[in-house]
């Protein structure tokens, strides 16, 4: 094979597909595009782009340094565009998310526990955001992260704004 071209998307360059309806409502497909959503988002808003009962996929515009988050279950961050540093630290006393709670919470202050480490992730890299850890993202240039998580207090739903409603 002389050459191949795998097409990934980015904030700067994405081409949306669409729904050609035969006998249906386009809304049934809850169809959006993570690059489009991130291009219209404020940094580190956690916007749901997928929802299945209590579970969600959140889409984040990575730009600058995020607040510190923490969560009482594992989450997984997938970098869809850009380079993102993921910083992990243990929360201090009283900073952890309530036991058994759903989704991430935002921490008021920097975590008081010991540093766990950091990871530099580029497009296609998936990072574990381990249960009980505090985490912070940093991106020098705008990028896009999706997070596999549970619907929580920070999850934003704006389906009518992001989803396709028309047949192509």
């Amino acid at each position, binding site marked *: *094979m002389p050459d*191949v071209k*795998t*097409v*990934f*998307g980015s904030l700067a360059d*994405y*081409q*949306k*597909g*669409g*729904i050609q*309806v*035969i*006998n*249906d409502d*386009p*809304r*049934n*497909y*809850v*169809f*959006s*595009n*993570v690059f489009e959503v991130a291009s219209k988002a404020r940094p580190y808003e956690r916007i749901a*782009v*997928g929802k*299945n*009962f209590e*579970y969600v*996929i959140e889409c984040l515009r990575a730009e600058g340094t995020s607040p510190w988050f923490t969560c009482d*279950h*594992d*989450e*997984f961050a*997938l970098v*869809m565009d850009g380079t993102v540093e*993921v910083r*992990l630290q243990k929360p201090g006393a009283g900073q952890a998310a309530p036991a058994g709670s759903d989704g991430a919470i935002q921490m008021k202050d920097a975590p008081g526990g010991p*540093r*766990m*480490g*950091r*990871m*530099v992730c*580029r*497009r*296609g*890299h*998936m*990072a*574990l955001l*381990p249960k009980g850890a505090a985490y912070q993202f940093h991106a020098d240039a705008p990028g*896009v992260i*999706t997070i*596999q998580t*549970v619907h929580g207090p920070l999850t934003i739903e704006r389906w*009518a704004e992001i*989803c396709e409603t028309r*047949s192509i």
Partner: protein
Amino acid sequence: MSSAIAVQASEPDNYYGYRSFKKGKFEFSRDEYFVKVKWPKGSHLMPADVFLRALQRDVAWNFFYGTVNFDHVFGTLNHYGTVDMFAGRFNDAYRNAGLDYVETFSSDDLMATFKAVLDDWTNKGYDPFAAPEETANPYGRKNGSNVDAISRQRVTAQRMVGCAGDTPVRTDANGYPVNRHFADVPQDQPEIHAEQGFEDEVRAFNLFGYLSRSDVTWNPSVCSVVRESLYCPTSEEFILPVEHGNDRVEWFLQMSDEITWVVKDKETGAPRANVTMRAGDIAAMPADIRHQGYSAKRSMLLVWENNSGKIPELIASGKAPVTPVKF
């Protein structure tokens, strides 16, 4: 699987060399080109490759979620412990004519027959998991076998690929070279700087690189787990060998390239929509449809499933909607 499970197989046919099989009142036979399925009220022909590619998924997925339509007539419906094998059940014309037929088996029992059929009917050099450009012609008379190809284990991460004690990342050394269609995919791994004592929690891996090294197509495999939320990414090329009629909503996040989904009504098979997804597109497949994907270039698809055992009943009884979000 119990060794007591009986598989009803004939001796090899004198002409074509393949065994015929019976399971309940269903009968299965193959010749150079076709598989014939017979049931008490009818019979149906399918090209052997279409049948084997679908059978391979049904076996690898242990009957998967909901309905696995081998085509518009034959398939299985999973009840998780038992499974329906059907003909014409999800086909309006067959139902109206009263030609549809369903028989229920214990999953292990039917699986034993399916594995025996897959083994006998797969010839040397033919890999039902592979894309058509990557494997031999499936047709002809009986000619050897391909046990290695058909008995691949489906990958199931417990936490995340690359975590301690979990499914390892793929490398040339462990037998997963980069696929020809993904030769340009960066293979760098994340930079990881773990403080002492936190090595098992500071974990990341190159998912796109991992998928670029998949040796199979249309075989979603668990890579990360949040309770019952399963990320099942997969690499896709040519046509999804089944029309999947899920018993719950599933989601697709297209990670690279392009797939077109042909969507039909789950019960009747009537066309509903064609959904084209390009890199970054994310969409739900409602619980009342069946879907079949077309991927011209090998592409990366994230299939996202909610594995909760409560959902099929909630959907079937109407207590949960067939679409995940109203807006």
